[in-house]
């Protein structure tokens, strides 16, 4: 399946792009995507403070992904 990864702030700068198209095996979860990202872009330095959103809703790392999903990595926020 293909998943669109959205990156923001320091994560976007670490990769040098606001999004990545990721190919994942069937039955992949957010956790699977994170492992793949960590292997391909170790400079992301993924850590436990990052939250995840699938199709614009916060989800747990165990959430199943589907072809065409948008997975956003949400580093600690600082709006306002």
């Amino acid at each position, binding site marked *: 399946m293909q998943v669109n990864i959205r990156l923001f*702030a320091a994560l976007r*700068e670490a990769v040098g792009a606001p999004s990545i198209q990721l190919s994942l095996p069937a039955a992949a979860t957010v956790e699977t995507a994170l492992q793949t990202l960590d292997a391909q872009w170790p400079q992301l330095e993924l850590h436990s403070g990052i939250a995840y959103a699938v199709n614009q*809703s916060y989800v747990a790392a165990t959430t199943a992904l589907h072809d065409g999903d948008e997975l*956003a990595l949400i*580093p600690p*926020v*600082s*709006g*306002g």
Partner: protein
Amino acid sequence: MATPAFAVSPQPLDPAPLTALVSDPGHGAIVTFAGVARNNFAGRATAYLEYEAYAEMAVGVFEQLAVEAKERFAVGAVAIHHRTGVLQIGETAVIIAVGAPHRPAAFAAAAYLMDRIKEVAPIWKCEHWADGTAEWIGNEHTRPH
């Protein structure tokens, strides 16, 4: 074009249309809060700020937070606009407007909404320090000041 109640954009913010959005003949109170770019962070001098947002999700989060606020406080209407891009010191980063029959609920809801925005809205602030370096800030709501 009519002003949306919830928005994230690089446009400079104006409180007047938000105040108009939440006004109602049955409301005796309108609280408008503005969050403004400050010239320091924990005492360190800031030259200017830059905000980045997952804008389409942030608008949805604002809508959800307005629902939360209406469940917790006796308020009638809520509007939230957040700005992105480069902000000079003194420019407005966020405006929250709340209309309510009575002022205690309006004040409380505005404070609640600002706290929740800092906790969950997918928006990030980059401090461009006076010394020329820059830093994305995270977990500001849990930091000592």
